[in-house]
C-alpha cells in the first residue's frame, strides 16, 4: 500500500545524498547483478546514509557489509566485477581510499586492456569527497587528480541532486570502472525535484550552469557553490561570469570549456585540491595548447594551497572562498 502511494506521488524534492540512494535503489531493481558493498553500508545505511533502507529492501546478499579493510573492499569489487557482477563499492571517506589504489590502478583500470577485452571491470567506487564538514583528520581529502592520470578509469563528480542521480545511474551502467566522487559538503546543501525515472546522464559532458560574457569560471564538486556565489557578486559589479561545472573530469569535455573561453577570453579555474598538478593544471594546459589565441588574460587557478588540508579550525582558510574567486576574476577582467 505504502509502495503504491510512493509510486503515484509526484517526484519529491531531494538532497544530493538522497539522489544517490534513489539511483542505487533504482538500478538494484533494474539490474539483479548490481550489489552494494562497503563498511557500514548494510543495516546502518552508511555513515552518510547513502545506502539507507537498501538492506531492508534488497537484503544482505545485495547490500554487503565488508570486513573493515579498504584493500578487501577494492579486491572483492574487482573480483566480482570481472566475473559478471556490477558492484558499487563505497570508500567510507576519501582519506581511507589509498589502500584501494593498487587494485584500482593495477587491476580495475587495466583488466580489459591486459586481457584484450576478454575480462572487464564494470565497477563503481563511490567516494565521499572533500573538506569543509569539520571532520577529523583524513576525512577531507580532494584527491581526484591521483585518478585522472590513470588510463582506463572514468572520474566524475556531480554537484547537484539531479546530476548525482543521472550520473550514478550512468556510472553503474558503464562497462568500465568509474571513480564516483561525491562532494560531501553539499550532500544536504539544497533539495531539488529529481524524477525517479531511471534516466542516466552522460559521463563525458560539462555543464554550463550560468551564461556570461566577461570570463569563464571552471570548477567542480562542492566549489560549484562558492563559484556561483562569486558569479552573483561579480554580477553586482557589472562583471558577467560564465560558470562551468566540469562534472566529468575523465574524460574531460574540453570542447565546452574551449567554446566558453572563445567567447569570454578569460578563464579562472577553481578547485579544492592542492594547486601543483591538481586537475586545474590539465585544464590550463589544454587552454594553452588549444585556446591560446582566444585568451586575453592569463589563466588563473584558485585552489587549495600546496599543503595538507588543515584540521577543521583552519580548513575554511585552505579552501577556495568567494572572496578569493572574485579577486582572481577581477584580475582577469583587468586584462583586455
Amino acid at each position: 500500500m505504502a509502495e503504491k502511494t510512493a509510486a503515484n506521488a509526484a517526484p519529491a524534492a531531494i538532497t544530493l545524498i538522497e539522489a544517490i540512494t534513489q539511483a542505487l535503489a533504482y538500478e538494484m531493481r533494474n539490474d539483479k547483478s548490481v550489489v552494494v558493498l562497503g563498511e557500514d553500508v548494510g543495516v546502518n545505511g552508511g555513515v552518510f546514509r547513502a545506502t539507507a533502507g537498501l538492506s531492508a529492501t534488497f537484503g544482505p546478499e545485495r547490500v554487503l557489509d565488508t570486513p573493515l579493510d579498504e584493500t578487501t573492499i577494492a579486491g572483492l569489487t574487482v573480483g566480482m566485477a570481472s566475473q559478471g557482477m556490477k558492484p558499487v563499492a563505497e570508500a567510507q571517506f576519501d582519506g581511507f581510499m589509498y589502500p584501494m589504489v593498487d587494485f584500482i590502478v593495477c587491476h580495475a583500470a587495466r583488466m580489459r586492456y591486459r586481457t584484450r577485452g576478454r575480462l572487464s571491470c564494470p565497477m563503481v567506487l563511490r567516494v565521499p569527497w572533500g573538506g569543509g564538514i569539520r571532520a577529523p583528520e583524513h576525512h577531507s581529502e580532494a584527491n581526484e587528480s591521483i585518478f585522472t592520470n590513470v588510463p582506463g578509469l572514468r572520474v566524475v563528480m556531480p554537484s547537484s541532486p539531479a546530476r548525482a542521480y543521472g550520473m550514478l545511474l550512468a556510472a553503474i551502467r558503464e562497462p568500465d570502472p568509474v571513480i564516483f566522487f561525491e562532494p560531501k559538503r553539499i550532500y544536504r546543501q539544497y533539495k531539488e525535484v529529481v524524477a525517479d525515472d531511471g534516466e542516466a546522464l552522460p559521463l563525458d559532458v560539462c555543464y554550463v550552469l550560468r551564461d556570461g560574457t566577461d570570463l569563464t569560471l571552471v570548477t567542480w564538486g562542492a566549489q560549484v557553490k562558492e563559484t556561483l556565489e562569486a558569479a552573483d557578486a561579480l554580477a553586482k559589479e557589472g562583471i558577467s561570469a560564465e560558470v562551468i561545472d566540469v562534472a566529468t573530469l575523465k574524460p574531460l569535455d574540453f570542447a565546452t570549456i574551449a567554446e566558453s573561453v572563445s567567447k569570454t577570453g578569460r578563464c579562472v579555474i577553481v578547485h579544492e585540491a592542492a594547486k601543483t598538478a591538481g586537475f586545474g593544471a590539465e585544464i590550463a594546459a589544454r587552454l594553452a595548447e588549444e585556446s591560446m589565441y582566444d585568451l586575453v588574460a592569463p589563466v588563473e587557478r584558485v585552489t587549495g594551497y600546496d599543503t595538507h588540508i588543515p584540521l577543521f579550525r583552519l580548513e575554511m582558510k585552505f579552501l577556495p572562498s568567494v572572496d578569493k574567486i572574485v579577486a582572481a576574476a577581477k584580475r582577469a577582467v583587468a586584462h583586455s
Partner: protein
Amino acid sequence: MTIAAHFDIEYLQYLGPDGKLVADLPKGFDPKSLLPLFKQMLFVRVFDTKSIALQRTGKLGTYAACLGHEATHVGIGSSMRPEDVFAPSYREYGAQFMRGVQPREVLMYWGGDERGNDFQIPRNDYPWCVPISTQCLMAAGAALAFKLRKEPRIAVACCGDGGSSKTDFYAAVNSAGAYKLPLVLCVINNGWAISVPRSAQTGAETLAQKGIAGGLHCLQVDGNDLIAVLEAMRRAGERARNGEGGSVIEFMTYRLHDHTTADDARRYRGEDEVKAGWTREPMLRLRTFLTAKKLWDEAQEKAWLEECGKLVDVEINAYLESKVQPVEAMFDYLYADPPPDLLAQRAAAIALEKRNG
C-alpha cells in the same frame, strides 16, 4: 591453564622422495590415474627448459621458470573443473595447461604481447598477476560472486611463500572466512622469494596456519608428491563445493631455477641446498613409483619426451611467427567506449606509423 582454542596443522605426504609410499593411498585412489598427470609434468618441464633457452637466445623477454613446481602446479590444475576460476601468480603453467591455456599464450605474454592473456579456453580465468598476491583477493571476489549467484563453482588462487606475507593474502583469508567463500588459496612454498628465504618472511611455523586466523581449513602438504597434492585439493575442493568454506593449502616444494631469467640465484643461495633440492624433486619419485608399478618405463619416457619436444616446438613457432600487434592495439582495449581525446591520440599514433613506414 584454560585453553581458549586449539589448532593443529595436518601434514600430508604419500610418496617419499625415494618413490616409496610412506602412507596408505587415499581411499579408492587408482595409481593409474597418475600416468596422464606424470606425462603432463614431463611436458611442462620440456616447455620450461625450451622457454629458458628461448630467453637466453634473445627470443623471449624475462621468463619466470617453474622448474621443480610441476607436481604442485599440475595437481592443482587437474583438480579444478572447467567452470571454476583460476587466479595464478606468474609461473603456474602446469596448472594453466590443465585448464586449456596454450603454451603459445604463455610465450606471447613473456614475449611482450598482451594477447597472451587472451586465453582462448579458460575465458574467465585471471591473467598472470605480477602485483604480489592481489590475485588472492580477486579470487575471493570471484568466489563471492559465485556464492551470491548460487553457482556451483569455486575459485582457486596461487601465491608464493613471499606472497603469504602480503596484506592482500591476509585480506583474502579474512574475507573467505567472513563470507564462507568457495575459495582455495594455494601457498606454493618454494623456499625463496627472489633472494629472501622462507625463514625471513615470517615467524610462523607453517604458512598453512595463516588460514586459521580467518577460520579456514588448513593443510600443509608435500608439494613434490603429486598424490598428496591431489588429495589436498580434493579435500579443499569438496569443502568449497559443499558450502563449508575456504582453505589454505601450503605446498612444500623447491625452486630449482632462478626466480626469473633476470635473476642469478648463485648470489644468495648455496649449491648444496640446490643439490639437495634435486633429490626431492617431483618427477624423480613419481617415475620410480610408476616404474615399480609397471606403468612406465624408459622407452616410454624417451618416446614421450620426443613427442613433447615436437609439441612445444609447434607452440614456439606459432609464437615466433605471430605478427606484432598494430600500434593502435594499445588504445583499442582500454575502454569499451573510447573517449574522443583517446581516439585522436590513436589516429596520431597510426599516422606516425604510416609516416615512418
